[in-house]
């Protein structure tokens, strides 16, 4: 990462801290998350950018996935270029990661065609762990738990850590800012 990118990133962080406080800035800028908005939207929030994806199954063996990369509208050009480059080389359809993910998806689909013989797909990685790791399959299980509840009405027991978000209330930004300022002083 070049000096001007580091400087621009540090400046944006300082602005965010001034506006939202350190605790919330940590959650915004220094926390990675892979968030499923049930049923078909994902927010993949990593340090080098936020990828939004929608998944629309159009046939039993076909899904259309659309990806967007979010970035601050007022970011300086070098920072924009850096984020675009990162997103491209990682998330792009010709990046160093996505072609292999697509291959994984297609091989899974191939496996699912043997549904009559094998009725289970193992997504138990990291199940029951106190804190899931980045490569655990918690979000897949969370998706299917919700799906199961929608289809059968039966609520499955939840899994995974619960995060203390009490500092976020009251809900309006200004009020949150005041709360954060008070807690810091």
């Amino acid at each position, binding site marked *: 990462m070049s000096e001007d990118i580091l400087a621009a990133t540090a400046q944006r962080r300082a602005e965010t801290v001034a506006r939202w406080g350190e605790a919330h800035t940590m959650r915004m800028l220094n926390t990675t998350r892979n968030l499923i908005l049930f049923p078909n939207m994902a927010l993949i929030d990593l340090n080098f950018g936020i990828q939004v994806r929608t998944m629309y199954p159009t046939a039993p063996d076909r899904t259309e996935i659309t990806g967007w990369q979010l970035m601050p509208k007022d970011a300086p050009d070098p920072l924009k270029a850096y984020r675009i480059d990162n997103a*491209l080389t990682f998330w792009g359809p010709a990046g160093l990661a996505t072609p292999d993910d*697509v291959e994984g998806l297609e091989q899974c689909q191939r496996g699912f065609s043997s549904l009559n013989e094998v009725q289970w797909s193992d997504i138990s990685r990291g199940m029951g762990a106190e804190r899931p790791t980045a490569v655990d399959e918690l979000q897949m299980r969370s998706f299917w738990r919700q799906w199961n509840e929608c289809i059968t009405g039966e609520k499955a027991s939840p899994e995974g850590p619960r995060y203390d978000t009490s500092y976020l209330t009251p809900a309006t930004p200004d009020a949150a800012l005041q709360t954060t300022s008070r807690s810091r002083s």
Partner: protein
Amino acid sequence: MTRAASLSEITRADVEDFLYHEAALLDEWRLEEWLDLFTLDCVYEIPAPDRPDEDPAMTFSLIHDHRPMLEQRVIRLKKPTAHAEFPHSRTRRLLTNVRILEHRQHEELSVTANFAVYRIRNGVEVTYVGRYEHTLTASPDGMKIRHRKAILDHDVLDPHGKISIIL
């Protein structure tokens, strides 16, 4: 081999020999040797097909590799964890309509060519169709590629939604 001194006298046949050799290295999966055909300040670019002339630094494209990323791409493609290409696909490149567009100050050649690249794997055959824009330069080891732009004619990346090989 073509020497720097003779770059201004290079003919289309010389360029064709170079491009056919380069295509053969890719089809034979000799990726390190292929990488040696690029300059250290090279760019390998596949723009968005509907906006091939946008600035790749400021808009989304499909590939925009400088030398370090191109090296990573080659390293990656040789790894067993590159699932899309392990075992690697068979490819066959057809190059036609090769033209030298411009000799720039006897230092660079602007070259264009049409391509059809077939990729066959797991019973699926995919064709990539488009046009190259190459900037070639001379070195003591012969011609090198300074800029490679592969402009696809596709409007969607069906049927498999990815580009896992080098175009």
